[in-house]
């Protein structure tokens, strides 16, 4: 037994709504518009001519295998400008099991201070 109605209900989030079916419809409409626009395009494309080659500011094109950007180079600017953040984060991950246990004790101590000392302080005030 397949009931369609509950599937099509709109998803209420408390202060708004979200209906993926409408969203999918909108995507399909947008794709249709794209296809129509693409139909207006120029059909003078010729294969195996200079049109297919990449233009790298006049520099010669590299081999295909060397064109692939390695994953550590992606977001290079972002990681380079925030180098101090990532370097300090990397330093945290020592891979040493003793440090892992030490973090557990530290978190336990912080929780202890917040939950026990903190409430006593609030009570005193």
């Amino acid at each position, binding site marked *: 037994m397949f009931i369609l109605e509950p599937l099509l209900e709109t998803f209420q989030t408390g202060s708004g709504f979200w209906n*993926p079916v409408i969203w999918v419809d909108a995507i399909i409409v947008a794709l249709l518009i794209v296809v129509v626009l693409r139909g207006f395009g120029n059909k003078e494309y010729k294969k195996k001519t200079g049109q297919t080659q990449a233009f790298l500011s006049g520099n010669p094109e590299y081999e295909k295998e060397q064109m692939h950007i390695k994953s550590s180079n992606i977001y290079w600017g972002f990681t380079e400008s925030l180098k101090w953040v990532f370097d300090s984060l990397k330093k945290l991950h020592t891979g040493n099991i003793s440090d892992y246990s030490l973090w557990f004790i530290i978190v336990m101590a912080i929780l202890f201070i917040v939950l026990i000392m903190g409430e006593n302080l609030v009570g005193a005030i």
Partner: protein
Amino acid sequence: MNVADLIDLLLQHSPALIVAIPLLGAFITPLISRLNDKVRNVFVILTLGLTASLVFLLASDVFSGNIHTYIFGSQDLALPVVRILFEVDAMSAFMVIISVILSLIAVIYSWSFMKENTGLDKYYTLILLMTAGMLGMELTGDLFNFFVFLEITSISSAALVAFWTNKAKSVEAGFKYIVISTIGALFILFSIALFYGQYNALNMAMIASAIQYTFLDKIALVLLIAALAMKAGVVPMHMWLPDAYGKAPSSITFILVGATQASLYGVFRVCFTIYGGAINLSSISVGWILVIMGIITMLLGVAMAIIQTDFKRLIAFGAVAEIGYMLLGIGTGLVVMLNPEMTATGLAAMKGGIFHIMNDALDVGLLFLVAGAIYYATKETSLNKLGGLARNMKYTTVFFIIGLLAVSGMPPMNGFASKLLIYESTYHLNPILSIFAILSSIMLLAVFVKVFHSAFLGPALPKFENVKEVPKSMLIAMGAIATIIIIFGLFPELIVNNIVEPAANALINYGDYIREVIPSFTGGA
């Protein structure tokens, strides 16, 4: 005896059978694997399939509003508080569904993925033991029993993380995992002893009804939250998680997602049910602790994910970030729980957090399965060496795109629905929280677009010329998860109303859980 009676009987005994069947199957597996490998694989899949059908039978009844209790070993059901008992409310049922789906699909995936390994009888035995442990953790109503199942889960999963013993890093990750789990579990046992010393009870409902929030209770709360959060991979105690996730076989990583979430379930059960009676004393501070933990977890998780170059380690940091969302949603629910003006916000936040548990298991799990498929096909995990695989592995690419969109919360996937709930409800609590949540979601998208670019796009590399699509069983497993993701994404209302909302209400109305065992308890609306 007709069919309806039989189903009633099965329903009544299902909490025990759900744990007993994988446990029995685990010890029959080594006997059966002497016969034939294929027979053993079929047997394991059938065992988990039977468990899954019992889980769905039980869950369908629990979601309609009944809380099931199962008392072990007594003919008359008198004196429930001194016996070991299982108590299943909607939250437990929700978690059990996730765990059993993960295990079932991991076993189907392993059929081809682990084919070339030896010692597979032990592998399947440990998988079934781990499943039994996870299910037990989520079903039990007894704190000591919770500890026992937690240890069963961690021992078997640590052994599975180190299953590829010829790899130094795998063994090392397994050792780290077992050390961390054992220390955490021992502190949990210590807090259980603190409870037992004060209230003479091990039963969660009994402790919850008697709790006074004394000094010792506060210590127990600190120990429980810290230890369970460590097992769930909360920053800054998450460092074992990328090691273990990254070095385990992919099918095991897939179940490990469920094991960490079972620990997360432990955090919620402790905060809401056991300390529910002390809620007016502790809810604000404990709730804020969870919220802040969640924010730190998601920000640090994505920040570390951006700079990773190992495929599975990167996804593991993504999984750390996802855990932050669950903590944020449910912590928000705990903060506003006593504020009558914000009941709707609290419920929405809880729904978002709980729905995200399931979405995280499916999305991150799918990405791990894809990572395993790529490892199976190319024997390569470093993203710097991969490239152009979309040409050879079409189905895997499609599954990766689905997982990518879902995990970064792009509409119309399921991740978006739960994240939308979390954004909106945390905005009501404090706009800065939702800004952090959206920011880390954007960064997650950036992280996985990077993975997509470096592994699947780009020119065809000569060393991957002969790479073929992975075998059928792995495709079936990935396809099943992808299908569930799309269904959940297209019809979130169906899932939220029927499964998530009862679970959220079960956590909020903790009194019902206690009254099922101690009828005289008053309180907990």
